[in-house]
């Protein structure tokens, strides 16, 4: 009847079966890596803002405390975006004619809020409370990074659920004493393992089962 295929088809067809398996595995791996990439999570990408506000200048160089603007961070779920009034406390006196600050003055004149773009935006099905974290020893820079060094603000965490779980499963390495919460340059002491365990008892942080229960974050 004669050959339909070349001799080399034997090798190609056998290799293509294995190749198919590896190809599928590669696709799955690539999709997972894409999900973790900062292109997808938007980590390290500064957001476009109506005013070129620099945390580096205000929190870093000027040394303004976080809570001066984010007033409700210790008591409420939402840390709070400052009203235009907070800006004008200073900027009615300094840089009062800077063209960069025109949107702020316009907001002040018209009473219309500035439309800041949210940088850390969790999905709506996640319940996140700033106050519980701040009061139980999680400092600002643990999640937000060195905000005091950021001219334009970006997120440093992926905000993936696996990132949340990393700490909820094992909070000890991240816990700090109360007076270090707002310290941007806090670094874990060498005895952090014992210190973290002590702080966990002191703060009365519940068990990992409770911290990783579905309804802790999805209410």
């Amino acid at each position, binding site marked *: *009847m*004669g*050959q*339909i*295929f*070349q*001799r*080399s*088809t*034997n090798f190609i*067809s*056998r290799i293509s*079966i294995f190749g198919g398996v590896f190809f599928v595995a590669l696709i*799955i791996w690539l999709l*997972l890596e894409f*999900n*973790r990439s900062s292109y997808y999570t938007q980590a390290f990408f500064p957001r476009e803002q109506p005013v070129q506000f620099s945390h580096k200048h205000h929190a870093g160089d000027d040394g303004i405390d976080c809570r001066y603007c984010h007033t409700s961070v210790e008591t409420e779920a939402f840390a709070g975006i400052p009203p235009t009034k907070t800006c004008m406390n200073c900027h009615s006196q300094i840089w009062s004619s800077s063209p960069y600050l025109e949107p702020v003055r316009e907001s002040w004149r018209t009473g219309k809020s500035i439309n800041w773009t949210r940088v850390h935006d969790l999905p709506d099905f996640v319940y996140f409370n700033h106050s519980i974290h701040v009061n139980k020893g999680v400092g600002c820079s643990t999640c937000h990074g060195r905000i005091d060094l950021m001219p334009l603000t970006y997120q440093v965490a*992926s905000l*993936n*659920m*696996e990132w949340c*779980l990393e700490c909820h499963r094992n909070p000890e390495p991240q816990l700090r004493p109360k007076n270090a919460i707002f310290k941007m340059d806090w670094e874990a002491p060498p005895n952090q393992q014992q210190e973290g365990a002590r702080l966990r008892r002191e703060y009365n942080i519940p068990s990992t*089962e409770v911290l*990783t*229960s*579905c309804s802790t974050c999805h209410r």
Partner: protein
Amino acid sequence: MRENPLESTPPDQTISPPSVIGPGLTFSSVTDKISSIALSRRTPLGWFIGAGISFLLAMLMLYTIGYLVLTGIGIWGNNIPVGWAFDIINFVWWIGIGHAGTLISAILLLLRQQWRTSINRFAEAMTLFAVACAGLFPLLHTGRPWLAHWLFPVPNTMGVWPQFRSPLIWDVFAVSTYATVSALFWFIGLIPDLATLRDRAKKHSAKIIYGMLAMGWRGSARHWHRYETAYLLLAGLATPLVVSVHTVVSFDFAIGIVPGWHTTIFPPYFVAGAIYAGFAMVLTLAIPLRKWYGLEQYITMRHLRNMSKIMLATGLIVAYGYMMETFMSWYSGNQFAQGLLTVVVGYVPADVLGLVDVRRNDRVLLKLDVPFRSIPADDLDLRNSDDSARSSGEGVGGKEEASMNVYGLMAEFESPTAIVAATRFAYEEGYRRMDAYSPYPIEELSEALGVHHSRLPFVVLIGGLIGCFGGYSLCYWVSAVAYPLNIGGRPLHSWPAFIPVTFECTILVAALAAVFGMLALNGLPQPYHPVFDAPRFELATRNTFFLCIEARDPKFDIEKTRTFLHGLGATDIVVLER
């Protein structure tokens, strides 16, 4: 085309009725008729009309799916907690339909019901489409089908795994295992048929397509031996699988605490209902198909009667299920269960019809003849014969050089009796490096070649053990190690809840091992092989038998072997180049 009842009779010789196929059929006429449907028959106008209507309905479905995704699954009635919404009903129904295909291909094979051969392939194809349709509904039921991969235990950025203590994840494993095993069963059964089509095809493109799909199947007796083993093992694996699938589907309901759902009668009643509905679908497809494609000789009244009998039997089980459900709803005194008193209509008329038909033809059952033979027990290892051939071949290099470019001598025989006799003689003469080629499996032929033992069952056993251990480890690791979750205070290591998934993984890996083990041991895919150069080799998938003594056999001598083969009654002998 395989496992034909004609097996024990010489080809091109009429067989006598009553039989599962019509009178006057021979191997060649069956092969030619069936392959002509796919290869040379002009597509009738009716096909285009039918395909056009189906296309419009498919477009309507896409439109409704679009509406569903944009609006939400509430439009299906999912807002009513105790009703089975549209998608749930469709899922259960479609999965059930598929059961008939697997039942025909697996259980009837194990029960040696010869009549399955005419209908099994399209019933298996129906199973595949039914499972594909069924699979759509849970995906759409999620409301976000693009996140459907969350149903499977794939590593993800959420660090979350499926809940192995829930029947919903058992269902995912049951249905995807079922879909995979059905596809494997269908495809492995199709391989020799694809080779038949490859050899009948006239157009080059058709030859290429069928040739690629047939993976170089050449009807070798050694291949047939492993193939039959793999097929039987797959049937053995698919039989408990098919029972488990609808059982697990019924657990979706029965494990819930909704009154009227929380009942132990669900698993058997679901399985019987699935087979009942599935055979109804096979009949719905078979009756017009045999008419339109002129297949009355192949799918005979006997097939239809046998299927009606299965419908009658399973229909009665379903009727009992309905009655018990109704009775228990009343007897329980639970007002909510009583509210769910079932309406019993569907099954009565069909069963009455079936009863009349079976009563009229009840003697048909007694005439079942079963010429199927079992795989023989082993008494000699193929490897031993290979080794002895190799060792005795040492030191005869000069002869090998002379026949350097010769693959072997290919002799043609006209009947299965002749090829078996010739192979036996050749084996007795001392030839070992040889192979016989036939259009269908012949037990005696592989025995005559000295093939008695196959490593395939061991490969499948290893696959099954890996699946079993892997499945259980997956459940345990996910539930107790990776993300321990307190669900109503149940233990993290809830081993009874891990059994369904462990079972499905066992079947899945064992079935994959059976199919890929068979292919690997047979050296397939091998689309190029010297035997294809034999001028009349395309008849090896129709009605002719070939014996090839290979040049690497130490006893091979081109002239002596030719004379020897001639003495065996070969009608045609050709030299094959390497």
